[in-house]
């Protein structure tokens, strides 16, 4: 049996022609729409135990996207974020950074990875050379302090380990002297941030209180589900105080498991990493943990800071984290830098960002500066102690930025960075 084709256009051909026609007429409009949108790539840890920090970064950036677009965008172009989840895997971080620039057409990057991913992204940015990237969350000092690692078009808008270490060590040295807490233990995540920053804290802590002695240390893996053997090891060493750099879900699990062993009644605990959502998530937050202010609506105690914190809370029904304000400041730097450079071209924009000082609610005195070594200074740092209920932290003492810069310079010389 044979089939005979009817004369004229088939249904398939008609549909194909209609599609081609629509594409022909729509293409210029689509192209214009794409060209008018400024795509900004953002990558972070958006799933897993650290995801609350990654998602708090995304939340803050979405607020900034709305604010900036309402004000006319960058260079007259509306901005649009492309969010990617690296799951905290450095190889994914590097791949995503390239994909965002080379395939997805992103003209700026906000790298909201933890240090493990940020170092991988840094090398991609150096290699690409044609895009500006702001790291918003890596606190490992070497990222920008080490001239061999610093990249010409990459910047850091984040707390920095050495800054925190100086501020925290001054506070903890005074605290330990007053209470005669000389036997310390440390427990920090086993990667660059945990090891480097713990070493910095200990260096300064011993400098300010030479009586301090470390009796044991523990290095659990990032995302480790069970800290039992770590906790019992710490208890066995009978320290008077524990310093930990665990954070997010790991800190929550550690506190819950440590509560079972009544660890907090056996030693004083100090950490720079108690964020709002972590405090809220820990069902039995012990009082009296000595902690840095990651983000607090009450520090700095200004109307602008409180207003931003409340706006975030209202929109997302949760409190911001330190990663949130850092992402917000990154966008404020992009806004001011692009205005100054009047271009997105990487070299010109990098030159505009270097040395730039902006007004922001998160500055110690209402301003934050992007220093010549591509890292921010003068952001609000304070130390206080936790309470189980809101405001979660009381008796906050602000850090002395003059002292921070002085000791950071000493540290850089010791490391042969300058």
């Amino acid at each position, binding site marked *: 049996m044979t089939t005979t084709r009817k004369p004229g256009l088939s249904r398939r051909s008609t549909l194909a022609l209609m599609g081609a026609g629509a594409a022909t007429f729509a293409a210029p409009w689509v192209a214009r729409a794409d060209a008018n949108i400024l795509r900004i790539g953002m990558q972070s840890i958006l799933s897993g135990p650290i995801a609350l920090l990654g998602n708090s970064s995304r939340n803050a950036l979405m607020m900034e996207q709305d604010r900036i677009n309402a004000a006319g965008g960058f260079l007259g172009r509306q901005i649009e974020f492309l969010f990617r989840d690296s799951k905290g895997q450095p190889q994914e971080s590097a791949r995503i950074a390239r994909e965002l620039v080379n395939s997805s057409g992103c003209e700026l990057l906000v790298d909201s990875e933890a240090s493990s991913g940020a170092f991988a992204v840094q090398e991609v940015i150096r290699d690409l050379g044609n895009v500006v990237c702001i790291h918003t969350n890596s606190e490992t000092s070497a990222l920008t302090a080490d001239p061999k690692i610093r990249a010409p078009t990459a910047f850091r808008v984040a707390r920095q380990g050495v800054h925190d270490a100086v501020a925290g060590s001054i506070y903890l040295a005074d605290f330990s002297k007053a209470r005669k807490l000389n036997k310390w233990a440390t427990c920090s995540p086993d990667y660059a941030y945990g090891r480097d920053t713990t070493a910095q804290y200990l260096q300064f802590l011993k400098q300010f209180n030479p009586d301090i002695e470390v009796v044991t240390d523990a290095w659990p893996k990032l995302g480790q589900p069970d800290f039992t053997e770590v906790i019992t090891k710490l208890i066995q060493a009978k320290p008077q105080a524990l310093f930990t750099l665990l954070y997010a879900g790991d800190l929550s699990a550690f506190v819950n498991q440590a509560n079972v062993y009544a660890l907090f009644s056996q030693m004083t605990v100090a950490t720079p990493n108690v964020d709002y959502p972590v405090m809220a998530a820990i*069902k039995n937050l012990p009082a009296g943990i000595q902690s840095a202010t990651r983000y607090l609506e009450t520090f700095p105690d200004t109307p602008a800071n409180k207003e931003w914190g409340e706006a975030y809370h209202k929109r997302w029904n949760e409190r911001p984290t330190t990663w949130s304000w850092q992402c917000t400041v990154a966008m404020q730097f992009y806004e001011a830098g692009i205005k100054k450079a009047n271009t997105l071209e990487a070299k010109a924009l990098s030159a505009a960002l270097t040395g730039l000082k902006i007004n922001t609610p998160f500055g110690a005195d209402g301003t934050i500066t992007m220093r010549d070594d591509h890292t921010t200074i003068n952001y609000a740092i304070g130390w206080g102690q936790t309470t189980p209920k809101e405001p979660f932290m009381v008796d906050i003492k602000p850090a002395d930025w003059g002292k921070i810069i002085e000791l950071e310079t000493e540290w850089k010389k010791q490391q042969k960075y300058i």
Partner: protein
Amino acid sequence: MDLTALGVCLTTSACVVTQATSGLIVGMLLFLVAAGVTLIFGVLKIVNFAHGTFYMLGGYVAYTTLNVTDSYALAVLSGTLATALFGVLFERFLISRVYGSNVLMQLLVCYAVVLIFDDVVKIVWGPEFHAMGMPPAFQVPPLFIAGGVVPPFYIALIGITALIAIVLSLGLSMTRIGKTVRAAAINPQMVSALGVNTTLLFAIVFAVGGGLAGLAGALAAPVRSLSPGMGFSVLIESFIVTVIGGMGSIAGALVAALLIGLVRGFGTIGFPQFTDGLIYIMMIIILLLRPQGLFGRRS
């Protein structure tokens, strides 16, 4: 490496008690997960790479039940039953379709389930971590036994898991269904030829295996963070347990899990930066001396 600290610990009753109980709790929870892996392998010769998903779902279901009912007992029960049911559905609708296929096909099916349910958890419970919090009955100070610190919650967990191990062991050796399962592990064709409903038997094996992993997830939820993908971390260690104990041996899984727990407990004192390495070295040595594992049969 700090052999002095390890020596001091081993000669101090407080340290021995504290580290041994911490090793026991790590080992017993690991045993619950690994028992399911080894049971399923023993009967069906399938390596269930999706087993961590059962552990994760058990934790999340328990978390939701506790929020709704305020009862930890109900939370644990619901986590166990939900994952047992999930085990039956997983076996009937997915894994039974690749019985007899090559191991890569089975791996692919399991891996797909892991990825799908990690995303399901993200959609239902959100991508961020959750903390269940300690049940009020266990919010009590730890006990001090011979100078060592022993939390009552962990004593309860060790008791429950030990009871499960005994019930599982007696169930397999004394009951009709247990004997049938053991027979199916040795000669499934003969069991089938004798008229045993192997379809039902395989579903039961998956229900028990999945339920045990879910029970472990639910029991551990008060002290461990819940997050998508959390099953992966326990999966690797449960495979090590299964390999060391001998593929298919419940008693082997118990001994291997306790060994790993104790190596973790004391290794962290003497080899703080090489505790994971110790476990793998132990596995290599055991496999060199007994390639079939501690309690495995030579094939």
